[in-house]
């Protein structure tokens, strides 16, 4: 199960975290965080868990990174000019080549996993049975937690609006 792919992507994971730690720009940190999340999705693919790999890509690399970027850009923490400069910086130096290599490797691994026979040792049906059959109270609890999180977010933003109006 552990192959050369595992070691190559381990190095990429550690490198992306190191770059995330070193960078001063918040947009760069989020970009390297997205790369790290893609690598974690590949590891789930290598562990023969395609459902988790897809979930990781859709929920985290898509959803969470988008929430973070929209949040920081709309609140004014990072201006449009800084985002444009970040884009120039990322695409303008040698890191662009390393990122290209990473995405090429990701594509090759994805193709290999897609065409490999018996990749799903665990049917998604079993997972659904666990979630919606055995542990359905946990799912209900998760839904309530989502509701609480959304209400808290609305509360904070309303409070922020009140402060702005008082000023």
């Amino acid at each position, binding site marked *: 199960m552990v192959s050369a792919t595992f070691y190559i992507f381990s190095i990429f994971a550690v490198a992306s975290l190191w770059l995330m730690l070193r960078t001063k720009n*918040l947009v760069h940190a989020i970009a390297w965080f997205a790369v790290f999340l893609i690598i974690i999705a590949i590891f789930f693919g290598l562990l023969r*868990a395609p459902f988790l790999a897809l979930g990781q890509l859709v929920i985290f690399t898509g959803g969470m990174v988008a929430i973070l970027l929209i949040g920081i850009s709309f*609140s004014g923490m990072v201006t449009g000019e800084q985002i444009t400069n970040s884009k120039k910086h990322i695409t303008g130096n040698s890191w662009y080549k390393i990122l290209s290599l990473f995405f090429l490797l990701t594509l090759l691994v994805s193709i290999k996993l897609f065409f490999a026979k018996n990749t799903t040792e665990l049917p998604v049906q079993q997972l659904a049975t666990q979630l919606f059959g055995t*542990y359905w109270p946990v799912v209900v609890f998760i839904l309530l937690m989502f509701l609480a999180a959304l209400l808290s*977010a609305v509360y904070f933003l309303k409070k922020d609006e009140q402060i702005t109006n008082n000023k």
Partner: protein
Amino acid sequence: MLFAVCYLYMNLMSYIILSLILFTFGVYGVLTSKHLLKIFLFLEVMTAAANLLIGAFAAYNKINAALGQAFIVVVWAVSIANTVVFVALAIYLWKKFGTINIDELRELKH
């Protein structure tokens, strides 16, 4: 049989070691970063490292592998709820104090 056990052990050990390295990076990032959102990113790195460890154990557990994956889905849900609250809190602090540097926020408290 012994070879199979050793092979399985080595494979699992690789994932355990990688998860520990990633988790250590996360802890180091949380302890050294000054930016509130960067601290949050490293908290998510720690969560991802823990998820990878659970995923590896679930993959090598042939009796009930779905349980581990279901647990990871629950952790995802907690993590996303956490993100929503954290981003809203960061925006609130930014609008109120004009900074999300934790050292400056600590000074504002006094």
